[in-house]
């Protein structure tokens, strides 16, 4: 039994390592910033996830208690990874020359938030992001 658990844990760690490596390799290999962003936001998630599961399994088997820090790390990772990626994507939209003209246009008359100002409050709009605030 000991052997099986150890095998499971080491497999998870190796899988985690492989995905981490692939994510970093993709970062170097893919052609431009937007495609490069795909590699680290995804491939590394599973890499870190596998290592965290291995860590939980190890603590559970070795010390007989449930460790919850790993779940918190996953939570923080899921909170921070998309936001960081979004910041970098926004930076790309700003720095790439003539990109605004090449983007597909939004479904309504307003453009993308990076380039166009939001509709003024008072326009006849339902409750969208810029809708009337309560309590004022």
């Amino acid at each position, binding site marked *: 039994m000991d052997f099986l658990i150890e095998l499971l844990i080491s497999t998870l760690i190796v899988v985690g390592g492989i*995905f981490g490596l*692939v994510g970093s*390799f*993709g970062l170097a*290999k*893919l*052609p*431009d910033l*937007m*495609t490069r*962003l*795909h*590699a680290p*936001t*995804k*491939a590394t*998630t*599973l890499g870190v996830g596998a290592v965290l599961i291995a860590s939980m399994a190890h603590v559970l088997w070795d010390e007989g*208690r449930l*460790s*919850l*820090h790993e*779940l*918190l790390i996953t*939570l923080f990772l*899921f*909170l921070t*990874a*998309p*936001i960081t*990626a*979004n910041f970098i*994507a*926004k930076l*790309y*939209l700003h720095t790439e020359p003539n990109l605004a003209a090449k*983007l*597909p246009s*939004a*479904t*309504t008359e*307003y*453009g*993308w*938030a*990076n380039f*166009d*100002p*939001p*509709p003024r409050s008072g326009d006849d*709009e*339902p*409750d*969208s*992001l*810029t*809708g009337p*605030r*309560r*309590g004022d």
Partner: protein
Amino acid sequence: MKPQPGGGRDGKGSRSLFARLLPHPLLTLTVIVVWMMLLNGFSRGGLLLGLALGIVVPQLTTAFWPQRPRVRRPLKIAEYVLVVLRDILVANVKVAYIVLFRSNSQLRPHFIVIPLEIYSPEAITVLAGTITMTPGTLSADLSADGRSLLVHCLDTGDRDGEVAGIKQSYEARLKEIFE
């Protein structure tokens, strides 16, 4: 968004004791759960401190929460999390495959536009985050009026299918949860 009882700053005197003590019950619960997870073990003292934090933190930060997210169907969140986890698993393998075995010239990266049917900022934030974490897609920008989302695809031959897939598997579920 309709005002909730005890949610806004309107009429301080009319708010009930419960609303004054816990201006944001959901945040209180989150703070307590995260605190207990940080402690990584159960103790009565720890729970008491977590409870105190859960009451003090929302009170101090209440000015930053002009609108509270409403969660209509909490049970649907579990289903959503499972769907997203499965998709993340698939996404990882798919992106790893593309990185390792496709040459750059074979990639078909595109920007696509997703018209939004959800209005609550929390739902849109969760949707944008989910899109970034799942197969070959990355949310890049929101339109100025918050009605459509700009998404970058790593490799796609079928842009309309991609949009329909995201709307069906994530947006429809978020609409049920938040609105």
